[in-house]
């Protein structure tokens, strides 16, 4: 029996109908290169709020986009990660917290997804071929988050498989990202979803791991969600229809979205739904368009932004923060749009995560969750940071859809870097967030401000020894290493690269990378390829040394001295055929006998010696140089450069004045340098701020000891 086949042309036509707002002038190539999605979903799902269950039906049409003949399909069943403690997710969680249950649900709060029926459109039952598989090895033999079904006849290139699935899911009491609390539900990763078929390699369909996120193919979605009447629903995509069944006491809403690779929704009867428009002509000035276009080497039309419908679902207790949420979202739409490419969808839905559903700070295509608290300081950029970050994932994961299992830095790292840039431009530095019992401490104390790149660097330099940034997500040393490397170290490296390559190369790199791989699945090699292409030089060394290795980067000044050059050195010399000995005394007498130099002529020369060291293992490469700035006491300065290959080097400068200080990397290009304190050295040993720091340190110790003594 042959697998039922749908003509790709029909799918293409359907996709184009769903895509009226997706292409922008000058932006077409990326989307066109990716083509229409070879995947289409129609899902009917009903929420049993009392029983915490989902009952679903799903139609999947998958078109084989490769030259391979595909005999099977691998499906993600993510919620089985919360089915029992034998899942890869909970095993890994437990391994990181050996003295507790990890993230395990309490008794009676497990979640799972059961495929109750799976067949082809012609009725062929695939259930007999259904098996759980272990794509990531036998270590987690009990994992059931990936299943395989066999087609009765393999799917030929360009042909389609049409599957009809019925599933029943128990919603977990939140473990991670999805779950319920009382009548609040956040539903993500909830439906059986095929992996990504890669030509010559087969299905890329990893298990649900604790330190990893997701990967899927672009698809067109139509989703019908039935909830109890009165429940407010927020969802990926655009609401197309809403019907209420009075007798059943339910409302069914239909949402549609083309060219996305996931679909999430939430519902809560208490929630407020607020809409605002991002009106590009109000948000972006003509000057900003012109400057951006000039920087990127594009026309103004190519960088022009579309309007976007912004939808906010927010808990009533956070009502006072509605404007705060929209302001942050407007900034994100504007700057991501200007820098990387216009937002291609009509809507974006921002969800204030329902209380105790553990769903905050998570991204899904056209929908993301933010996160705030009832007592929120305006000086702390929260929820702004999370809003910008999660919206930003619409670009880095949503559009440039890298494999989050295998190259998480491409979304988390690139997006953490981008978040920091948007926050810096839109808000400046934010106060560090410290709370006590729900109270922001900056209401009472002078909490310092910091830019994201500063806080990211703290983690970045402390994470280097554990794993390369490019490690596969679940293979990191632990969750801390995963987070610090994938988010902060990657972001710090990108800021370093930005400073190293400068304008206009860097903004053009980011723009090109995004637009070229929009609606595609880029890899680390793709990113490096774009960097090399646009920078016009081979920067592979940067990624080899810093991204794909665990080498600390630290260049520093080991020594600085300035000494008067004597007119004569001690010892025995032949002059005019006779041997003469110069001693300290004769040199001194000779110098005293010298006539005083006329005004403007230096009396003596000084030899300034600077010793530079490469303390770290990582080395700069290509045409990169360590810049050395020597300042002298007369206000002049000299700049030298070091290729940084050897372990150390010595520089000498002869000038009629003593040196005052030496500084390497005076422009602060090498943010990844793990010791900035040793990057400079003065000839004196007194620094006012250091003295202040020391007095505060002493004072802190005094107060601490007084406190200890008060318990006696």
């Amino acid at each position: 029996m042959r697998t039922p086949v749908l003509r790709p042309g029909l799918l293409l036509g359907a996709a184009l109908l769903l895509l009226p707002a997706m292409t922008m002038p000058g932006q077409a190539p990326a989307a066109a290169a990716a083509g229409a999605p070879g995947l289409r979903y129609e899902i009917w799902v009903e929420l049993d709020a009392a029983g915490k269950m989902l009952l679903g039906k799903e139609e999947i049409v998958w078109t084989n986009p490769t030259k391979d003949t595909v005999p099977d399909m691998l499906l993600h069943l993510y919620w089985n990660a919360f089915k029992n403690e034998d899942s890869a997710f909970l095993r890994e969680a437990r391994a990181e917290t050996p003295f507790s249950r990890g993230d395990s649900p309490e008794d009676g709060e497990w979640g799972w997804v059961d495929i109750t029926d799976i067949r082809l459109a012609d009725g062929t039952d695939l259930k007999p071929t259904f098996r759980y598989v272990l794509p990531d090895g036998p270590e987690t033999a009990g994992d059931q988050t990936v299943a395989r079904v066999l087609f009765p006849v393999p799917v030929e290139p360009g042909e389609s498989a049409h599957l009809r699935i019925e599933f029943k899911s128990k919603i977990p009491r939140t473990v991670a990202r999805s779950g319920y609390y009382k009548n609040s539900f956040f539903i993500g990763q909830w439906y059986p979803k095929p992996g990504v078929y890669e030509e010559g390699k087969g299905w890329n369909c990893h298990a649900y791991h604790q330190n990893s996120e997701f990967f899927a193919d672009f698809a067109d979605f139509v989703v019908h969600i039935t909830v109890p009447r009165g429940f407010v629903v927020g969802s990926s995509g655009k609401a197309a229809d809403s019907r209420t069944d009075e007798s059943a006491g339910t409302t069914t809403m239909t949402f549609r979205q083309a060219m996305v690779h996931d679909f999430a929704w939430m519902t809560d009867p208490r929630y407020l739904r607020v809409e605002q428009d991002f009106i590009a002509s109000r948000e972006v000035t003509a000057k900003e368009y012109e400057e951006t276009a000039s920087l990127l080497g594009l026309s103004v039309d190519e960088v022009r932004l579309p309007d976007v419908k912004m939808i906010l679902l927010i808990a009533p207790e956070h009502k006072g923060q509605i404007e705060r949420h929209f302001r942050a979202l407007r900034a994100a739409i504007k700057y991501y749009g200007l820098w990387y490419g216009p937002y291609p969808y009509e809507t974006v839905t921002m969800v204030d995560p329902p209380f105790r559903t553990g769903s905050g700070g998570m991204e899904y295509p056209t929908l993301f969750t933010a996160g705030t608290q009832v007592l929120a300081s305006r000086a702390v950029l929260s929820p702004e940071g999370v809003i910008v970050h999660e919206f930003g994932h619409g670009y880095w994961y949503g559009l440039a859809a890298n494999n989050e299992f295998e190259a998480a830095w491409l979304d988390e790292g690139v997006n953490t870097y981008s978040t920091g840039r948007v926050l810096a431009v839109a808000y400046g530095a934010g106060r560090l967030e410290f709370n006590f019992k729900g109270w922001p401490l900056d209401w009472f104390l002078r909490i310092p401000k910091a830019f994201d790149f500063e806080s990211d660097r703290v983690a970045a330099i402390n994470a280097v020894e554990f794993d390369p940034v490019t490690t596969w997500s679940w293979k990191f040393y632990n969750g801390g290493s995963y987070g610090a490397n994938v988010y902060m170290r990657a972001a710090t490296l990108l800021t370093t690269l930005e400073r190293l390559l400068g304008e206009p190369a860097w903004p053009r790199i980011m723009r090109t990378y995004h637009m070229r791989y929009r609606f595609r699945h880029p890899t680390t090699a793709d990113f490096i390829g774009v960097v090399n292409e646009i920078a016009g030089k081979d920067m592979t060394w940067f990624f080899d040394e810093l991204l794909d290795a665990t080498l600390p980067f630290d260049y520093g000044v080991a020594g600085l001295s300035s000494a008067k050059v004597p007119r004569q050195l001690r010892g025995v010399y032949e002059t005019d055929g006779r041997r003469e000995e110069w001693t300290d005394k004769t040199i001194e007498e000779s110098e005293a006998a010298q006539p005083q130099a006329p005004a403007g002529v230096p009396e003596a020369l000084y030899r300034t010696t600077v010793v530079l060291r490469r303390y770290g293992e990582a080395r700069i490469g290509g045409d990169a140089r360590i810049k050395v700035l020597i300042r002298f006491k007369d206000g002049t300065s000299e700049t030298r450069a070091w290729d940084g290959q050897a372990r150390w080097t010595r520089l000498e400068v002869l000038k009629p004045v003593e040196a005052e200080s030496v500084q390497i990397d005076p422009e602060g290009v090498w943010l990844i340098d793990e010791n900035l304190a040793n990057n400079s050295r003065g000839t004196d040993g007194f620094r006012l701020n250091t003295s202040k720091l020391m007095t505060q340190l002493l004072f802190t110790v005094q107060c601490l000891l007084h406190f200890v003594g008060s318990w006696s």
Partner: protein
Amino acid sequence: MGVIKAIVSGIGTTLRKLRVLIILYVANACFSVIVALPFLAIVQKELGHSLYGSFIQPVDLMWLGEAMLKHQDALAAFVAGLVACGFAYLVFHIFLNGGVVGRLLDREGPADLASFWGDCGRYFWRFVRLFLVSLLFLALTLGIFMKLVSGLFAPLSEAAVTEWPPLILSNLHFLIALLLLSIVRMIIDYARIAVVADEERKALKALRQALTFLRKRFFRAWAIYLLIVAATVAGSIVFYVVLGRLGAPAVVQVVAALVWMQLYVVFRIWIGTLFVAAQAEFYRSHPY
């Protein structure tokens, strides 16, 4: 004796015995310098010659990250050293307490060094025993009461559908803990006073005497305690407001900040003596 009168008399006593304050300040300063010295040396070594030291901030993330990385191997030793120093200071302070309570209770007596150190030695072991008993008392009282409060609040917090109930309950829980702590510490203060005033040698008996004393005049005694706490909070607010206005670092500002910080430390130590003096006045005025 009334609440205010006890505090005013206490202030008078502490001002008459400024030498006690000086001894405590010198002890704190010397101990602090010893504890802080390794940290100060690290700061000077790493930033003294570096231009970074010219613009480093009190909480400088860029440098803190580096310091964490550089000293991660020594961190455990640092923490152990700090704990050891803290413990040593605690014992030393128990020793000093003998002198403090002894001299402050001897209202008209001298506050010379000989008398002070004499009292330190005389009461040391009694105060050590009292300290151990008070630790047990503190743990039991707070443990039992707070467990009860937690048990009462937990179902309310678990049933919450918004952030507000857990937030309010958590703050209420904290406030109750603070008030309870103030009561327990007040009881221990009076036990310490009883050791000296009544020459009580047994810690448990001193504690019982304090409880008996407070049973009849609890709220007045508590008011004294809380008023002095309020004065501490007010003084601290003034300190931080002024410190924040000292401006950008210049030599004058750094020196002014140092002096202001030291004045604050003196103030905190003085408040510590005021607790003893005011409560001693109150205790003495109500013989039982």
